[in-house]
């Protein structure tokens, strides 16, 4: 049996679909220059992708065709040499189409493998999000704002080639940086991109993460039922009704919290979260009414609290709120729990309002999608600046 290499790309569905595909294809084509056959594929169970919902793409490469078949015998590799995470908020763990429960992003990476994260943060910050595990692994960062676009227009900001460069550094047995450059020059025909790849290669470094280091949270799971345990006729129980909940200050019941689907929570879809100022809220109802996910709990005060177990971060609430800075979408990576903001506010109003001051700040690159023609072209230079600095 020859050598078998596997790379998985964890990405935001739709927003990074093309980006992920470019990377896995690049791996296969680059490795091929070294005589290694390979395949690239998106996980079938993730299809159709939905905006923001985590998805996976794979590249399997082998030293020879027979060994490649070994890699192709499974739907997807459970152990990979490199895991690439294209948006650092994914480090909190992923719920996807295809799985039951929450999966850690480092679940698949081998003990001597590397987790590569596209992020502007430092490893210590990421390790507040990435779950701890029993085996070691290496962690490396490619400095980047998460590259997002959409179905029809692609934001060509060199993230794909930079990731290829980083992979070549983390795992040279898979492909050399020379092969990556050859692929870029031959197929993509861009020497600028080749330089970006080379720069990323040179800057990339990974640190050892020892067992037990990381986020202590236990990822939630649920067991799949046996066929005799399942109700017949492909039938499952529906959702019950919600009800009022307790005001921590008065101890009284009030407001309304809907029952929440505990099988798929959707919190891992978000890259930003709505931070709410309960003081300036005018109780106009618009955020609660217009949230497609019914995320808002109606507080006993009559204000609206985005339930962070379920919020997927679309930002419609911020857009429809008529009061300036009452709801502000903030980078999800800055937070490390899903506790109710309203409860924090009720327990310590002054503290909360102080906290708001430092927390609410404009996000430089909020858009994860198209807003106007020419937008991506305007955003690319900033991304290239970061790429140059590494």
């Amino acid at each position, binding site marked *: 049996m020859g050598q078998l290499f596997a790379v998985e790309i964890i990405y935001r569905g*739709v927003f990074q679909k093309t980006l992920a595909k470019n990377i896995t294809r690049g791996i296969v084509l680059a490795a091929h220059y070294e005589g290694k056959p390979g395949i690239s594929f998106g996980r079938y169970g993730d299809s*159709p*992708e*939905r*905006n*923001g*919902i985590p998805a996976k793409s794979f590249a399997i490469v082998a030293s020879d065709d027979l060994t490649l078949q070994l890699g192709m015998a499974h739907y997807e590799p459970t152990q990979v040499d490199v895991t690439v995470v294209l948006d650092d908020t994914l480090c909190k763990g992923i719920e996807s*189409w295809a799985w*039951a429960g929450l999966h850690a992003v480092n679940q698949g990476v081998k003990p001597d493998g590397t987790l590569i994260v596209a992020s502007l943060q430092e490893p210590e910050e990421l390790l507040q999000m990435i779950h701890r595990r029993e085996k070691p692994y290496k962690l490396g960062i490619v400095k980047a704002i998460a590259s997002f676009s*959409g*179905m*029809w*227009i692609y934001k060509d900001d060199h993230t794909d080639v930079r990731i290829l460069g980083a992979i070549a550094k983390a795992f040279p047995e898979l492909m050399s940086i020379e092969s990556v450059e050859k692929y870029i020059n031959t197929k993509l025909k861009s020497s600028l991109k080749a330089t970006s790849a080379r720069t990323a290669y040179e800057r990339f470094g990974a640190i050892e993460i020892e067992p037990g280091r990381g986020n202590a949270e236990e990822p939630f799971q649920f067991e*799949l*039922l046996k066929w005799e345990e399942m109700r017949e006729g*492909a039938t*499952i129980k*529906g*959702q*019950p*009704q*919600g009800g009022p909940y307790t005001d921590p200050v008065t101890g009284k019941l009030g407001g*309304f919290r*809907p*029952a*929440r*689907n*505990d*099988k*798929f*929570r*959707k919190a891992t*879809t*978000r890259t930003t979260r709505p931070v709410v100022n309960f003081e300036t809220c005018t109780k*106009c*109802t618009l955020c609660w*009414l*217009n*949230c*497609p*996910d*019914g*995320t808002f709990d*109606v507080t006993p005060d009559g204000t609206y609290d985005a339930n962070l177990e*379920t919020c997927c*971060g*679309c*930002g*419609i609430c*911020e*857009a*429809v709120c008529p009061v300036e800075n009452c709801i502000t979408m903030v980078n999800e990576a800055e937070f490390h729990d899903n506790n109710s903001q309203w409860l924090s506010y009720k327990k310590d109003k002054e503290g909360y309002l102080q906290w708001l001051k430092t927390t609410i700040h404009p996000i430089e690159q*909020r*858009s*994860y*999608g*198209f*807003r*106007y*023609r020419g937008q991506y072209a305007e955003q690319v230079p900033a991304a290239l600046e970061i790429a140059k600095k590494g």
Partner: protein
Amino acid sequence: MSTFVEQKPTQNLEPFKGVKKVPFEEYFTSGHRTCEGCESAQIMRLMAKAAGPRTIVIGATGCMYVANTSYYSTSWGVPWIHTQLGAAGSSALGAAAAYRALMRKGAMKDEPINVIAFCGDGGGADMGLAAISAAMTHPDYNLLILMYDNEEYGNTDIQISGTSPYGVNTSFSTPGKVKRIMHHRWKKNVAPLIVAGHPTCKYVATISTSYPLQAMNAIRRALSIGGPTFIHCLNPCPKGWDFDPEIAYEIGNLAVNTGIWPLYEVENGALKLYGKTKQIAEGNQKRLPVQDYLLKQGRFAHFTDEDIRFFQEKVDEMWEKWLIPGVIPLRKEVEAGLLPAD
């Protein structure tokens, strides 16, 4: 109405008298696997909220099937069942007929149960149009067909349907090296088709997710008025239309304010425009240029000025040349040179 029509009583769902009167109960809760900013999910939520607990929902194949219910996971707080892509109309009839027979025979408690079948534009304007049409001719059965229109087959990763707008980029109509515009067809005018073709249907309406209160009240009216009813919702799709999810509500408003998506109800044959559509029709508000709407979406990013002009002309026609502006495309006068031969 003919004396041979036997309509059962419906629930008396009064309109919500303002956003503060909208009840808190959710019958379509969080945790569905839809895109961020999915307005189709939003109309599901509003529909379930408007209908209340004495309801069954039948969901035709589409985004609102596949995304909302993955086996073992569901967001529905009312009974819900899958039906086939083109079967919203027939399934709704079947449910209504069953309840009627069983209640009449004393086999089931006699009470008004809301029967709602939803379908996407693929399942409504394309495949399921015949079944919906048939359902609309049955005055004895109380049911609502809600067509949520995201102007594409969304669940299969975006392809054109009969309601897709002219020139749109989808995976079956990609602009290419030789053909920039692959989709030459104009959006089907579905609500007026239902109105004009089914004289005994008492209620047809168009709604928008950017008008949530009116949307819910239209649904409540449809469920209360009796007989088969039809509602066509335009719900912007951040994935297929390619725009930042955050501006979904804004896009919905632009569709109305440009005159592209007129809002109206037809109740017992009487047409009533509402919202900004009414303002536009009465001359109190100018229509925004369609460009403001089109160029905020990646699916139109390939449009040239010529394409935008063409689109604008067609929308101008809707308002300036149609017999009932925005609604019925018969001409007020035939243009010179277009008279049929004597």
